[in-house]
């Protein structure tokens, strides 16, 4: 287990990676990526059991993670590389021709660490449930984790999956919803209000937790440990996690402007000043 400082250093470096990756190709989604940096970093550095030295698609005996909001790919790539799945230097190929680091994550080109394509929203929960069913059939007691945007759960497939998981007691699954309250066209409450996500999932028969400080690695770790304790009890587990879109870069916070917008040279310099190099840039 990493110290709090080490984990914070990891997150800072991941933020730098995200900013530099989207800046280099003047495209990509920094807002949500920065907002979930602490969550995905903590998950891979502190919580999940996995073997990144020799990646296997089947992942038997390993915890598995499905990123359903695939547009946060730069975050996913940075964390995977810095967790040992592939060389950090490959982050420089993000969104470039013939790269394994496509705009949205995919296993199509053999990038270690990725087991399912995502990008078209709303599919990752179903994918996660399917792999959770197989884990049970295989007598594998590891956990499936999924991450979703709050806007993403406007997709109907999410609710089909939510019904199925509760009805079938898929209790080896922890779904986390990034409740940043923002989506492309503006605040989620204005676009298509979700009201109480907690109440909705509870009504669907899920075990629901709320995490108020979704950008605080220590609190995330605590919540995930608590969520793990709630698995195996007949209900799927959902964490509704409040985050700040664009977290760690002052001018990217409190607005949805940076959902799918890359910083220019000057903005990048400012953003990087706020996130000094810790583990070495790619």
């Amino acid at each position, binding site marked *: 287990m990493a110290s709090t400082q080490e984990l914070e250093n990891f997150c800072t470096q991941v933020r730098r990676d995200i900013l530099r990756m989207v800046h280099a190709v003047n495209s990509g989604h920094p807002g949500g990526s920065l907002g979930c940096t602490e969550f995905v970093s903590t998950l891979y550095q502190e919580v999940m059991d996995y073997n990144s030295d020799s990646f296997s698609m089947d992942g038997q005996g390993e915890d598995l993670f499905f990123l359903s909001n695939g547009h946060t790919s730069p975050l996913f790539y940075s964390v995977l590389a810095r967790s040992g799945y592939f060389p950090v230097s490959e982050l420089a190929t993000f969104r470039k021709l013939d790269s394994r680091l496509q705009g949205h994550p995919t296993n199509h080109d053999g990038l270690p660490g990725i087991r399912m394509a995502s990008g078209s929203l709303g599919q990752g929960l179903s994918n996660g449930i399917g792999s959770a069913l197989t884990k049970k059939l295989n007598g594998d007691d590891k956990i499936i984790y999924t991450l979703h945007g709050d806007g993403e759960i406007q997709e109907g*497939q999410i609710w089909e999956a939510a019904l199925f998981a509760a009805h079938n007691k898929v209790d080896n699954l922890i779904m986390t919803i990034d409740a940043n309250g923002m989506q492309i066209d503006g605040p989620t409450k204005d676009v298509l209000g979700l009201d109480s996500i907690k109440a909705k999932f509870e009504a669907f028969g899920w075990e629901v937790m709320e995490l108020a400080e979704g950008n605080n690695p220590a609190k995330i770790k605590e919540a995930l440990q608590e969520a793990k304790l709630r698995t195996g009890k007949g209900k799927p587990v959902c964490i509704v996690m409040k985050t700040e879109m664009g977290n760690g870069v002052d001018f990217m916070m409190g607005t949805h402007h940076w959902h799918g917008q890359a910083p220019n040279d000057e903005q990048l310099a400012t953003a990087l000043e706020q996130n000094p190099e810790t583990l070495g840039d790619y």
Partner: protein
Amino acid sequence: MTKYIDSGKNDTRSGFGDGLTELGLENENVIAFCADLTPSLKMGPFAKNHPERFFQSGIAEANMVGMAAGSTIGGKIPFIGTFAAFATGRVYDQIRQSVAYSNKNVKIAASHAGVTLGEDGATHQILEDIGLMKMLPGMVVINPCDYNQTKAATKAVAEYVGPVYLRFGRPKVANFTPADQKFEIGKALMLNEGSDVTIVATGHLVWEALLAAEELESKGIKAEVINIHTIKPLDVNAIIKSVEKTGCIVSAEEHNVFGGFGESVARELSQTNPVPQEFVGVNDSFGMSGTPAQLMDKYELNAAAIVKAVEKVISRK
């Protein structure tokens, strides 16, 4: 011509169900999902024999496709069952991203394809599914012709690693292929050799093609009949070899001619051996309610239509 005997009418969906039942007993990695159509897909015996490996998905096809894709991680071989209309058009994006692009070992079992679904009408009679599925990179598309072949195909696709679209139907039709056949994905089957015209048919139209060949023989026309059970990958060599001999071709399918099997044949032949081709299929329209026989007649998907197409294509040589 070679004689084929109908050993007793049976439905191709029962071929799927019986194949799946055997697979369940033989291979513990085979699992199944069904979206509230278990009796229609004949999946009941599998569900009863292996309740732990059968997942009732409810009327929620998108989730079913996504779960099936996820379930392959860890080595399971999922079959997902529903009507062809809901197994393709309704969930195209899920199949595209989670199954085809992610290259997952999912077997899409699509029943009640085409107009022979009958009285339920156009909402359920998909005529575009072959096109939708063949356009997906890496997707294998199979449309067997009778009960025995559907059963053999069901067992064969479990052995193949990769996404497969297995299309079959509702009505009881002639069962004339061998019960003990070995099904080879991508291998066309020569049913009758001839020299005047090539008839390539898929699915329910294969039997109609044989009936047509009999009638043509009485008119002095020797028709070569080839059963194309695998539309993708297409056995191009078998088709080319045949048209080199006959010089013209008729394709027959229970599907829209736009985007269908016949178009795949035409695309291949246009590049290497362009010959006159006529298309037996639905001409860019939706279906409607009626009995299967009435609909086959109305949409010209039967032996009579094939005979007419053959006479026309020969006149164009």
